[in-house]
């Protein structure tokens, strides 16, 4: 079963053998190849290359092709403020001083703004990995798009002029339908409507203003034969039921929502729920073990793998350590073995006598590859592959060994060595490469230093 088939089975509400896994690597994708956020979102080749690296290292069942809620706003006249380590922000609101609705003639066309770049990368990703990975096209939700255009006054307009808000939302819904069409035509399998501001309004406001537009949007996406998802950020717990009533195939929530409680609601509507690994405390600032533990603990709360997608709470911060996502990926793909690893790591009770090599007096350079398990973890496979290739080049000039975290002895060994993240390569006891796979030149140079 490919990752794509796995995710499709989940979205068809089938029981699966493991949980589906969708890493929301937006600008973070750039971090994998040393590109900054602006480059990722403005340069076609950089975006493509970054996404391919996400696919290679994190082995996703599904992945977003671009995570930028400002794409439509930019075309519709909002100025953007760009950042090196995050998506751009909207810096001006064209309707801030005028309570008007733009002409439909202004709706985005495929040749405007950054759409040519995005659509081209979608086609290239479809060609490159589309057989095995489900691709997500993300559009800006009508409410957030309306606030991009109108600014914060939109909230007061909900009291002052309901008709205006309805008209503006109708325009933004049309925009969403058009963007969906473009993305579906470019090969996207899932259209995710991302509307973080939904968490900032009451359920009655959601029902008054957004139930109609969202139902229309999801009906439209369904009529085109692809799956849909409704992404929110923040404490949207109270609105989950109203969101389900608009009939998306799935919803996605962040750590502000108790996902198990929310799942009881989404299950009632047979809607898939995805989430909600904490972005900052766990993914950005936690260790690899924290990430694996969080993921397996979350999965342990599910009676079966049905209607659930393991995913970060929202767009991953740019600087999430690669090994943390690798840890989550491994927890999703090899849940039972990671559960054992984490248990062993925490219990710390086994009394195994491990002798570290005498690094000071080695006969030849010793390359030690520390992995979660090179047989099942993609990043570990590549790291191990790099070491094996080096061993072939250097022959008897070096020694090379793999230590798998799945073995208790190696948990003791890693603690003694001070190994913080996997996969990594140590040469003569010194950490040389962590998480990011070295090129053959880099690895050879590091070995030669020790010869």
């Amino acid at each position, binding site marked *: 079963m490919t990752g794509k088939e796995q995710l499709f089975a989940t979205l068809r509400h089938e029981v699966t053998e493991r949980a589906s896994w969708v890493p929301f690597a937006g600008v973070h994708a750039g971090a994998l190849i040393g590109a900054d956020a602006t480059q990722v979102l403005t340069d076609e080749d950089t975006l493509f290359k970054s996404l391919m690296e996400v696919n290679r290292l994190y082995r996703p069942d599904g992945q977003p092709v671009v995570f930028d809620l400002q794409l439509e706003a930019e075309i519709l006249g909002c100025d953007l403020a760009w*950042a090196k380590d995050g998506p751009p922000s909207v810096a001006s609101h064209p309707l801030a001083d005028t309570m008007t609705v733009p002409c439909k003639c202004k709706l985005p066309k495929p040749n405007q703004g950054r759409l040519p770049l995005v659509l081209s990368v979608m086609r290239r990703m479809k060609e490159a990995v589309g057989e095995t990975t489900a691709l997500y096209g993300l559009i800006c939700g009508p409410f957030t798009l309306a606030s991009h255009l109108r600014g914060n006054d939109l909230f*007061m307009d909900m009291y002052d002029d309901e008709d205006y808000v309805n008209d503006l939302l109708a325009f933004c819904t049309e925009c969403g339908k058009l963007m969906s069409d473009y993305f579906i035509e470019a090969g996207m399998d899932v259209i995710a409507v991302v509307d973080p501001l939904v968490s900032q309004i009451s359920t009655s406001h959601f029902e008054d203003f957004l139930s109609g537009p969202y139902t229309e949007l999801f009906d439209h996406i369904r009529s085109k034969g692809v799956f849909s998802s409704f992404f929110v950020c923040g*404490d949207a717990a109270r609105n989950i039921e109203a969101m389900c009533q608009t009939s998306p195939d799935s919803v996605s929530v962040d750590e502000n929502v108790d996902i198990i409680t929310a799942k009881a609601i989404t299950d009632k509507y047979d809607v898939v729920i995805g989430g909600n690994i904490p*972005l900052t405390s766990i993914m950005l600032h936690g260790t690899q073990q924290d990430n694996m533990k969080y993921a397996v603990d979350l999965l342990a709360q599910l009676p079966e793998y049905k209607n659930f997608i393991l995913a970060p709470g929202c767009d991953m911060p740019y600087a999430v350590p690669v090994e943390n996502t690798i840890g989550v990926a491994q927890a999703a793909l090899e849940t039972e073995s990671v559960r054992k690893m984490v248990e062993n790591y925490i219990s710390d009770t086994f009394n195994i006598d491990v002798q570290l090599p005498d690094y000071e007096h080695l006969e030849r350079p010793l390359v030690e590859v520390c992995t979660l398990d090179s047989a099942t973890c993609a990043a570990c496979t590549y790291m191990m592959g790099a070491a094996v290739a080096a061993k072939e080049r250097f022959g008897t000039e070096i020694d090379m060994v793999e230590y798998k975290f799945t073995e208790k002895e190696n948990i003791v060994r890693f603690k003694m060595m001070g190994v913080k993240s996997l996969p990594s390569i140590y040469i003569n006891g010194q950490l040389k490469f962590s998480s990011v796979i070295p090129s053959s030149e880099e690895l050879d140079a590091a070995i030669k230093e020790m010869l």
Partner: protein
Amino acid sequence: MMSILNDISENLQRGKAKVVKELVQQAIDQGISAKEILEDGLLAGMSVVGEKFKNNEVFVPEVLVAARAMNMGTALLKPLLAGDGVESHGKVVLGTIKGDLHDIGKNLVKMMMEGKGLEVIDLGTDVAPEKYVEVAKNEGCQIIACSSLLTTTMGMMEDVVKAAEAAGIRDQVKIMVGGAPVTDEFCKKIGADKYTADAASAADAALELCEAMA
């Protein structure tokens, strides 16, 4: 007299700006002091809104319309308050940190703080650490309050703490931090004084800090 002040409070809670304005004018005409109208009418109403916001009973739109109603009322009272011996409960300089343009949360904090009778200098968004400190120093603020929505900008808050130290005013101001990715642990780590999870709690904490420093 109590009934008109209650009416002001209740209409404010429902965001009825025009009604609040009319009622405040009526109260003034009845000879009720500006101080009483402010504290027992407008601020009392805003306090209820703050509590409900904290408890997830009302949300951003409800707070914004309530704050607008409060501002309509206070505009009428301002010329009278000066002669009424009403002093502000403290002075806060507030802004969203450099590199961050998000202002909904920051605006809510401002409204809630004003609803507690605090004077707030709003520096807007994308505020350099030195700017907070400069204004706090020149204006005699007891509190610097920084907001951040992005994980990438929250680190800049530490520079505010450092800038306050460098300017020699660290012992004269309390530094408050907040925003979606910010936590109490982070607040402690950067050496700031107070983290709060929502706008209403921020206002409560600011008032407490100002009273403790008075």
